[in-house]
Each structure stands twice: as C-alpha cells, then as structure tokens.
C-alpha cells in the first residue's frame, strides 16, 4: 500500500510541476528558411536600423510562407537588385521575395511563383500643379532615376495612346529626348522627390512601389499604369520548394490572403 502511495505521490508531484509550467512553448522541430528581401523599399521590404526590424508586404509574405511550409525559423537576408540572383544561385538564400520583376530572361533562369503583386510604372505629381492626366503632361519636365528604363516606358505608352509618334527604343536616350515631354535624369530617387517638391520637375516617374515611399499629402498618382511589372517569388529551378511555394501562392491569390496583404500595406 505504502509503495503504491509513494508512486502515486511522485506522479502527482510531477503532474503538479507540469501544471506549473503550463504555457511553456516548445519549439517543434524544423529547419530554417532563408529568404532574401529588400531593405530600402517602403511597404515591401524595409529595414529599420533603430529597431532592427524588417517591415513590408514581402516580409509578411516570407513569414507566412515559412509557417505554411512547416519551417521552424525564418532568416531574412538583405539583398539588392544587383546581388539577389547571385545569392540565390550560390545557395545563400532559399528564395527571393525582393520586388523581383519576372522578366523573360529571369523566367528562363529561375522558377517563379505566380505574381503576388503587379507593379506598374506610375507618374506622381504635386496636387498644386493641377496635372490630372497624361494630356496635362505635355510640355512638362519628367524626373526619372538614372539607369532605369521608365522614360522609355512612358514614351512608348504615350505613343500607344496616340499622343506622340512611336519612338525607336534602341536609339532612345532620356537625357536628350525632347518630344511632348522632356526628361530630367537624376541620380537617386530621393533627389527626384526633392526636385518634384521644389517644382524643378513636374512629375516623378518610377515604379509604383518606389513612389509609395515618397507619397505624401500634397502628392497624387496619375491613374495611368505603364509597363506592367509582376513580382514573383524566385527560387532555384527544379527545387522541391518551388512546387510547393507555387501551389501555396496560387491558393492565397484565390482565397484573398494576398489581397488582404496588399490592402494592409496600401499598395
């Protein structure tokens, strides 16, 4: 009898201890998912030095994928447009969710999911300039960042709209072009924004995602959407991940999860 009691007592004591530790999380097994994200695009992938935190739609997407795929932890690896593909190929990252436009060449080189966001090149103007549409842009100075093809996109678009004669893409140079509009090529996006503020340029031409970071009360986006740029999750071709990720993204596009994300970040 005494023996039984001892055993029971021990069991109860253990149970008591266990109860006291209720609520302790225990990490279940699983590896680490490494995702490359941007650090300087507001609302997509932005890194804040002070708090050490990433924020943005793509960051959220990475977290959601991580738990959906069953990984134990997520590691966010900062990438730039220049080095993201390299990091993917040499294995530093498992996938890149970093405003990667799915161009033809890229599609050949990597596996992509369906586009989770379709960006366009947009035109941002100051409200006080009273420019409301493409037609008002005639004679205006458009600010673009160097080494981008946005100017060409605009010109092509305007040609499509019948505003101007079509232009030869190869010979096109934004710095010298003088047609219905003129371009000012500026070194950084921030500088273009300042130029817009002071009125040096009448419009800011860039990806919508970029423009969203410079948007404020007195500025407005023209409704025109140029040059579609779908963003997708980029992975190594043939990896086991790509199939699962694509399937998940497809599902989320259908059931509105992605739409919620877009709404949340107001993009």
């Amino acid at each position, binding site marked *: 009898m005494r023996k039984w009691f*001892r055993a029971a007592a021990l069991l109860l004591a253990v*149970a008591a201890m266990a109860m006291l530790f209720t609520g302790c999380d225990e990490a279940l097994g699983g590896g680490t998912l490494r995702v490359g994200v941007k650090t300087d695009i507001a609302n997509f992938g932005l890194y804040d030095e002070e708090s050490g*935190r990433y924020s943005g739609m793509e960051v959220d997407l990475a977290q959601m994928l991580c738990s959906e795929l069953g990984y134990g932890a997520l590691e966010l690896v900062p990438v730039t447009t220049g080095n993201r593909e390299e990091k993917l190929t040499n294995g530093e990252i498992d996938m890149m969710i970093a405003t990667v436009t799915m161009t033809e060449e890229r599609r050949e080189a990597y596996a992509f999911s369906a586009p989770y966001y379709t960006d366009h090149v947009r035109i941002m103007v*100051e409200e*006080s300039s009273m420019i409301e549409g493409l037609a008002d842009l005639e004679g205006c100075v458009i600010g673009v960042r160097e080494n981008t093809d946005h100017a060409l996109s605009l010109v092509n678009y305007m040609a499509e709209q019948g505003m101007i004669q079509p232009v030869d893409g190869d010979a096109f140079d934004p710095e010298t072009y003088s047609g219905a509009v003129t371009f000012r090529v500026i070194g950084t996006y921030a500088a273009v924004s300042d130029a817009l503020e002071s*009125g040096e340029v009448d419009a800011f031409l860039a990806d919508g995602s970029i423009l969203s970071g410079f948007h404020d009360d007195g500025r407005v986006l023209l409704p025109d959407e140029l040059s579609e740029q779908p963003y997708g999750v980029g992975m190594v071709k043939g990896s086991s991940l790509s199939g699962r990720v694509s399937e998940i993204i497809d599902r989320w596009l259908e059931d509105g999860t992605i739409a919620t994300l877009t709404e949340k970040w107001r993009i």
Partner: protein
Amino acid sequence: MENNTATATEARVSRNRTIIRWIVMAVVLAAIVAAAMSVIGSFKLRTSEEEIYATNRIRVNTVIQTLEDGGAEQDELYQEYDEMYAAKLKNTKYYFARIDRATIDDRFARTAAEFAGMDSAAVIDAQGNVYSTWHCDYEFTRNRFNMLRSPGGDDRTTQPFNITGEDGVVRRFYGMEVAPGRILVFVQDWTKTQNTIRRMTSWGSILQHLVSVDTVSIAVSLNDYSYLYNPIDDLTGKDALQNGMEIEYLHDSYEGELTFGGEKWCAVGRQWNDAMVFVLTRATANIVDDGLLIGSISIVLTIFVLLVAAFGAIINRDNIRMGKMPHFISLIWRRNARGEKKGILNFNLDVAGKLLPIALIGVAAVAALSYYIQSLNALSSIAYEANWNTVRITDTLADNTESADVVNSEYKEMYLEKCTQIAEILEKNPYYVLIFNPDADNVHAQDVVRGDDGQVIAGLDSYGNPCWSISEQPFLRSLSELNDIEKITVFDENGRIMATNNKEWYFSVSDDPESQSYAFREILEDHQDVIAQDVSVDDEGSYRQYIGSVFHYYTVQNEDGSTAYVSLDDYNSQLAGTWEGSPILRHRGLVQISISPERLRAVTETASMYYVADHTTVHGTGFMTIFDDSDEHLCVYSRLADNIGKPAASIGHSADAFDPSGESYNGIDTLQGTRYFQTLKLTGGDYIGVSVPLSTVYAGRAELALMVLAVVAVAMLAVFLWSCCFSAATEKLYEESTDAESGRVRNEQEPFLLTMPSGKTRRVRSAAARWDAEYIPWNSKTPDQKFAAVTKVVFHCFATFLFLCILLSRAGVIPIDAINYVYEGVWSKGVNIFAMTNCAITLIMVFEIAMVIEIVIENATSSMGSRAETLGHLLSSVVRYGVTLYAIFYVLYMCGLDTQSLIASAGILSLIVGLGAQSMIQDILAGLFIVFEGEFRVGDIVTVGDFRGNVLEIGLRTTKIEDPTKNIKVFNNSTLSGIINMTKEASYAAIDVGIEYGESLERVEAVLAAELPEVKKRLPAILDGPFYKGVSMLNNSSVDLKILAMCKEGDRIQLCRDLYRAVYLIFNKHNINVPFPQVTVSYLREDEEKSDEDNAKHEIDRTLDKLTEDEEDDEEDETPVDKA
C-alpha cells in the same frame, strides 16, 4: 529485558515511520494545493485580463467620443488658419482696391505684406511673371505653382498648398486676384503654424487626461504611422511601426497585447478617422494584485488543510500509543490462509467521528475567508482608483484651463489684429457713414426714425427697408463677412453708434459701470487704445467676445450747418497745409467687433469641471457626480440629467458623507436602488463624487469562490480519507503497543475518569492542573490539547506574519491596497468590510501584544520572589481585563455605535452595576490589601476557620487554598478573616509520653537527655531539639512527659508520629515501660459464711465497672486486662 528493548525500539522505529509518512503526505498535499491554486490563479488572471479588456473597450469609446466632441480637430484649426490668411488677402484686396486704387507697383508686395502682417508676399500674373516680391523668391512659372495662378475670380482665394523648402521649413501659399491680371501671393511659415496648432490642440492635451491608474491612451496616425501621442517612453511623434506597433493592429479595431519598453500592455484599439486610438492598461497591474489575492487564499487554504491533517495525525498517533483499537470498517479485505477476513484497507470510525466536524468547519472557513479576501481586495483597489481619479480631476481641470487660456489668447490676438485693421480701413474711408438724405427719391418723409434728441437716425424706403441708415451698413456688412466677424459697430466720441452692420442701432456705450460695454469707455476717454475682453457667456448661453479699437474720424462743418465726414488723407493734407476747405476736426471714436467663436466654445468648455467629469470613466461603468457646497449639496452635474438640481439626500447620499474639512469619504451606499461604492471629496469648491456599481466591483467573485471551495473540499476529503484509512500494517502497530506503555500514556494524560450526566465517560485532569501555570509536556497532552497547542502556534505565526505585512505595506516596500486602504481610507463606521477588517486586525494585534506583556511580566516576576509573583499575577489580570474591555469598546465603535455617549450613559449603568458589584469590589479591595500588606502569600500554610492548607493562588477576587489531601477550597477574599498563618515561624511538634508511676523519673530523664540528641540526627525534619520539657500531667495511669521539637509547619504532623516512634524505641531499649491502665483490686474479709464467691463476684463487678470507666477516659488503645 532484551525483548522489551527490542519491542520498544521497533515501536519507536514504526512510530518514526508514521511521522515520516505524515510529513510526506503533507508535502504532497501542499504541492497539489499549490498546483490547484496556480490553475485558479491563471483563471483569475484571465478573468482579470478579460475585465481589463472589457473596461478598456468602454474607455476607448469614451476617448473617441471626447475626440469627436471637438477636442482634437486639428483639421478644423488648420482650416481656420487657412481662412484667416485668406481673409487677410481679402482684406488687403478690399483695402487697396476699393479705397486706395493705387497702382500695383513693384513695392506693392511689401506694402501689402506690411498691411497684412505677413512675412513674405509677391504679385504675379497667371503666367507666373513676377511684378513685385517681398522676401519671396520662387519660380512662379513652374507648374508647381499652377494652383496659385488660377484663382476662381471675384473674391475667391486659391487653394492653398505647401512646399517644403531645402531648409526643411514648410511654407504655405495663398493667392488672390487683387486686380485684373494681378495675383497677390502670401507665403506663410507653416511650420510655425503647425507647432501652434499642435500646442493648442495636441492629442496629448486631450488624451493625457483620459487615463487612470496604470492606464494610458495613445493614438497612431494612419497616414504616416507615427505616434500622434504616446506618453510611454516619450514616443510621441516617433514612428509607430518601429516602436512597438504592428501594422496588423492598425485598422478597424484591435484587442491584444502591446509591448513598450519591455512592459506588456493590454490594449483595445479603434479606428477614428485617420487615426487609430488605443487604450492600454499595464498587464502586470493586475498580476501583482491577483498574485497577492491568490497567494493569501492559498496560504489560508493550506493552513486549514494542514491543521486538519495535523489533528488527524495527532489523534492517530495517540491512539496507536494507547493501543486503543478503534472501531473500524474494512473497505478492502481478503481471506487469509485460515479463511478469516483480513482487512487490507480499513476505515477508522473513531477518528472519522472526531475529524469530520473539524474538516467541515475548515471547508466552510476557507470558503468564507476566500470570499472575504476577494471582497476586500476588490473594494480596496476600487477605492484606490476612485480616489486617484478624484485627485486627478483637479490636475485635469488645471491643464484644461491652461490650454483654454492659451487658445483664448491666440484668438484674442488674431481678432485684435482684425479690429485694428478694420479701424484703419474705416479711417481712410468715411463713406461707411452716409448721412440720411431726406431728399433722396425713395424716401418718404414720414418714414423716419428719430432718436431721443430728435435727431434723425434712420429712414425707410417705400418697401420698408432701411436705407442710408446707420444700421446694416453694406460696407460694414462686407467687411464683417470677409473677416468672419459677427458684428462691427462704430461709436462716435460720445459713445453713440455711428454705423453698424446689424439691426441694433439703438445701442450705445454704457455709462453704467456694471454694464459690459462700460469698459470700452476707456478707449473713448483716451485711456486705452485697444481692449480685448475675454470670452464670456451671455444670457442665452452663447459664447461671445468683444474687442474694441480706437479709431479717429474727421469732420468738417458745411456752410449749411450740416456735418460732413472726410478721410484721414484729407486730414493729412490739412496737416501738410494743402487742404482747402473748412477746418477738419479730429474725433476719437471706437470700433468694436464682436465675435462668436463657436470653435472656441469647445476648448473653453473643456476648462470646466463638468466637461472633465463627463469624460471620465472609472473602472468601466463608474461615473462622476458633482455637488455644490450648499447645505443641501445640490447636484450640479450628473450623468443622469434628472438628478441635476436635486439635493444629495434625495439621491441617496447621507449628509455626513460631505466632509467640509476636505477629508475624502469612502463608503458603500445605496443610491436610487443600486448599491455603489462611493467616494466624495471637497475639491475646488465643489464636492466630487465617484460611484462604481458594486456588481462591477465584485464581478468574478462567485466563480473564484466556488473554485476555491472545490479545491478545499477535495483537499479536505483527501486529508480526511488519508487520516481515517489505515492498513493491516498499522493494525499491527496497535497490537504492538504495550500495555504498560498505554497505561502510562493514559495516566499521563487523563488520570481521572469522569462520568458525564449524558452517560459518557471522559478522562479529565485534576482541577488544580487547570490553574497550574505549569507547562504540560507534549506527550502528556491529550490529542485535543495537542491540536489546540498546534493551532495556537499557527495563530501566533499568522499574527506575526500579518504584523510584518502591515509594516511592509505601510512603509511602502510592498504596497498592498487592502492594508493601505484599511488604515488610510476614511471609512464610514458601520458593519462594512473595511471597518470589520480594521477591527479584526486591531484586535489580533492588541491581544498578541497583551499576551507578550503577560509573558514578560510572568518571566520577570517569577525570579523575584513570591510577592513580585503575586503582583505580576495581578498586573496580568489587569492587562487581560483591560484589553478585553478595550476590545469590546473598539468593536462597538467600529460598528458605528457612538461609544462616547455609550460610556457617558454608562454612568447610570455603573451605578446599577456598582450596587450589584459591591461584594465583588469588596473582594477586589480585600485582595489588594492582602497582597500589599502581606498577611499571607502564595505558598504559605494557613488555617481559615477549620480549613488548613497551602495557599495556591491569590487572585483579584478569590483565593485558592489546597489542603494536604489535595482538596481545593476557593475563598472570596472578603471572607478571609481570622486567618492563622502557620508559615511565619517555625512550628513545634509536641508529644506527651507517659511513664509508669513506679518508674524512676530521674532515670528516665537521664535516658532522655542521652538519647534525644541522637533522635535529632536521625530525624532531619527537626530543626531544633527535641527538648524534654518536664511533666505535663499526672495522668490516671501514667506520668506524662512533654517532649518538644522545633520544625516546619508542614512537617509537624509527621514529626509527631516520628517522635512517638523514636521515644517508644528508646523506652524499649532502656526497659522503660509504657504504662497501661492498672487497677488494684482489694476486697474486705468480713463474713466467712458468706460465699467468697459472691463477695468476689461483687467486688469484681464493681472493679470491672470502674475499669470500664477508665477505659473510656483513656485516649490510647488499651489491651484489655482481665485479671479476674
């Protein structure tokens, strides 16, 4: 011998094992209870958390309501500023266009800027060409300024917009067409304005007051995700997403945890326009509270359960020692080899019977105590919060008043400027005053209105419309519209109206100092140039502000005697000498504007107690009420509009809740049928009350109490079963217990068997033992006494612990709301929880201290002799009675009885009592005298009447004396008269021994002289002697010798016996006979014929008779002698 030792050792070992069993069981039980309580604790935490969320849900709605009521409408203020600058443009245009048709030259920007009080201005055209600038350098041709270059025409200003310059300063651009093709641009430093507006209407100034203990309100802008206001870690203005906020939380509504600076907060958020408003409560706030609550309940629970377990253990152990096989039933049994039923698990009915009532009492006690602790806890934290709020309201009011003052002065400045501008305009343009021209076409002679002095002051046209009148001057009307001013009134030097834009032309500046307009006489009389009065409320409740400015008007006398008005320029030309006309006279008049700033009303309103009270929530459903300080304490503000104006008594407040000395009142009152926790305090001239419905306060009490009840019931049941069940092994223990031991135990504990009237027998100790201050060793205690001892120890420990808690709490080390409240809060005396708690704590403390005092007295006096001991005993009694009396009165006082009058009325009572207590007082006095005069003391041997014995105790009232046969007689002190105290000196043991008549006295004396000293050596009780004292009596049959020995009184009787024995032995040794009665019979030889036999018989009969008489005389036993 060996066997016994072996058995004894075995018994001891098995006893130790039992003890270990019990200890293990106690530990396990405590662990289970701890686990159960932690589960309950987490439940309580969860409910507390739910409560917090529920409260905050209500709070956030209140906050948003406040915001909507006009506190934080920065947009409106920005709009007002926009309107103000637009008005400046319009004013300027009006001034220069209608009056001063100056060419807009290159100096115009500067002129306009100076006129309007702007830092920066420019004149441009629709293409952006610049004609004039003043501190203004922009490329106006750029598309950036398109909006500026496309005014709407007429008097419309352009849509303002901002440009952030390279220097980081935000500037706002306003434009208006002042002349065909000429746009006047004003540029304003908007950063300055932004700061001003923020200062005037900051989120902080509104949100910082909507807080409570451990609760704050924050707001996040949904435009740029920065903190509009966050007092935690000074995060106002910082980016929210990087500082504790997640973007998921920022839409619609949110409930959950937020972390700032490492602390967790329970937050409820709601979206309001372009902001997300949260109300946060520190998550740990309730953890400490709940922790203490659960902790104290757990301690109580554990103590009770362990006490019952201890009682069970004690009973069991004693029964085992006494070998008393209890009545039991077998729960599980098996048949052994011999086919007998052998119990494996038995249930002890005896123990069950003893333990059951205690266990039930324990369960009830724990349940009741947990309910009580919860109530105390809930009430005290509410009390704390409510009082905090009452204090806060004064601060809030002060802050609001300050903000209101700031806004007031800003407005004043703004409108003062407008007023002076208008005065300037009027000075240059006298056309506002158009003299009534009776010859005008549309005037009928009879349709005139004359003033008191016969002067025509108004005329009506054929339609009945006033025209060319002093009222509703169109010029002034335009001016007032442009400037968003309600009324413009122009007064002449006598204070009479010259012109006004509204219908009230009969008004004049009053001579009566009581009147409001009287102040403006100061301007007319050249004492002041401007007057800006504060916002006041007129009779209809509208807010109005009057501002006045001096202005001069110029008149000339026409040839026909009428007066004509000329302008300032004309006067200047007169001064310059170029005027050609009648002399111009300069007059000092007054321009007065009145504004009804509706927006001002909202801010000014906040500077009132009522506003603050309206926007305060206490604990969710609590609210504030305000009473004035009249005798009836009329309600001046209440959530329920019906109550406003009613005297406090009709709502349910008692008059003594209103303490004019400023002390706050806390109590539980029934107001209009519902029970509330109520505080009231005199603050700023009014009484501010906070009421919280008790149902909210006590929410969750019942569930927790039930859970605790369940836990304690289960624990008690476990203990009960554990104590009552015993196994075959234990059965053996009963059998092993030896008879000798059980007998000894029985004797130790209860040697006397008493048969009660009910037929039951009880074992009791002697009466004397009850009064013995002697310490009874543990083993000699009965189980009940052991339990009592354990309980006493536990109680003393608890009292000490309580004392420590109170000290720590009052010193602020670990503030416990409940304790602080009981001592600090001013409680209404009555049968309420705080008063009763105060009573209980105070009584415990007082009795503990009394006990300590008694112990100290006892220990101090025990070594100082019996007089001190008696005195000490007396003091202890005094302390005991005094403390009890004090306790009674304190309890009555706490219950609300007026003990002052009680004691006073006790005067008559004491007379009655005194008469009845006569004998008691006599006893007490006698006792005091006995002690002080030392007639006898404790331990003396005294004889009172025929009762001789040892003095056991001299009490206040009675004295107890114990005789040699251990009977105790209790005397009232007053009856102790004629006491023989036999202790003071030594006593004498005296014996009388007889010797034969024929014996030689000298020989005997010699023998005694030799032997008696030897006797002294052999009898230690003899202090001195024995002494031979001589012949005491010549007795019938003996010569009696007296022998005396000195001894203690207590030894006297025994010593007498010893002396007799010693003397007898001495006589035997020396052949001294101890005499016995001798009779010599002699008969006369008279008649020989008569039978000798007859004579002999006759003589023998006579002798025998005589002998019988002698026999009866002798004390000693006689060996009957028969010599016949």
